[in-house]
């Protein structure tokens, strides 16, 4: 019996490598959310994030020949996208504060509150977010990647162009600073 199933990521990558643009479009669709948010975190504006993510995806397509078969696609892609975002931030020569805003009051999504939900109510949430926003860029980026985008340490290292050891030490330093300003 022939069962039709959606192609795996590896199959899509292989097809894209051979020049199948629609396979690549599917890959972009699957990863555009995380790629855009990572670029937003680094570049600091939605417009630049969009440009950086788009450019990153186009560059990644051209670099597919260098992508090692069987290795995870997402960190490889995030690295290219975040690099674009960083270049934009760098060449623009500015260090705009990244304004992360808490979403609408309460858990309006209707989802059941998570177990930790009780830990963080209204005012406290604002205060913690302020503390995160006040961190130095390099610390805010690791906190953003690890906790807000929920990237793994490996993916964070790839996205920020750091070694895993540096990600670990920066994360703990950032947590230390947050603890100091948020008690």
């Amino acid at each position, binding site marked *: 019996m022939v069962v039709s199933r959606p192609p795996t990521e590896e199959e899509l990558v292989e097809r894209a490598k051979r020049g199948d643009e629609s396979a690549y479009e599917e890959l972009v669709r699957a990863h555009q959310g995380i790629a855009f948010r990572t670029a937003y975190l680094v570049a600091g504006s939605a417009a630049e994030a969009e440009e950086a993510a788009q450019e990153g*995806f186009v560059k990644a*397509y051209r670099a597919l020949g260098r992508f090692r078969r069987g290795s995870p696609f997402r960190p490889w892609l995030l690295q*290219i996208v975040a690099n674009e975002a960083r270049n934009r931030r760098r*060449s623009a020569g500015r260090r705009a504060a990244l304004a992360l805003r*808490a979403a609408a009051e309460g858990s309006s999504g209707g989802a059941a509150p998570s177990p930790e939900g009780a830990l*963080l109510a209204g005012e406290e*949430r604002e205060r913690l977010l302020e503390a995160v926003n006040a961190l130095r860029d390099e610390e805010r980026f690791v906190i953003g990647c690890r*906790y807000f985008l929920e990237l793994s340490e490996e993916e964070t290292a790839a996205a920020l162009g750091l070694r895993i050891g540096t990600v670990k030490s920066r994360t703990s330093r950032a947590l230390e600073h947050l603890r100091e300003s948020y008690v």
Partner: protein
Amino acid sequence: MSELDGVLRELGRQVEFPPTPDLASAVRRRLGKRRSWRRPVAIALAVLVAAIGAALAVPPARTAILDWLGLRGVDIVRVEKLPPVPAIGDLDLGEPVTLAEARRRSPWLLAPAEAPDRVYFSTAIPGGKVSFLWGTPASVRLLLTEFRGQESYIEKLIEPEAKVEPVDVGDRGVWLEEPHVLAFRDRDGNFREDTARLAGKTLIWQRGSVTLRLEGDLSKEEALRIARSAD
């Protein structure tokens, strides 16, 4: 620790990101157009290079990649203002080795006449990166870095007025007198932020497939003398 961990994760779910644009369609459209726009850009660049000629005066564009200098291993980029980076970054030297060991691992190595105090080997670049250091890692007097390859593994950011002076060493070389930002790239060509640091006077040159970079507090003549002794 664990409580802050949980609280941050919780906060993360409540942080608002702008809605993701439809990148998939935009990217698809650009892939289809690929050939039609690359050529005009290449021609425009060629015209620009011709206009600049031998003067090496770069127009005050926000970023201009000076790869027409012909240095394969290095990208020199002009930026309006140098980004803030540490004066002493991660030198990323790798492990200390003997000169013989460095030669064994990187047979293409060119050793300078004056013996260095230390030799390091790093695998950060395919084919290896060898660093000769005079002084100590904490107090570097001179640093000579060598690697081989067609790809560029060093990125240098310079300010609009900084002079890039072509010099006669190896196949081609340039001398940078002013402070600039130096960073290495990884194997995929991405900028490695943790290696970014401020660099001083630097001579960069190419010999065959080897890119060499000499940095330290020395005059251009001294740098050229050391460079020409590397064999």
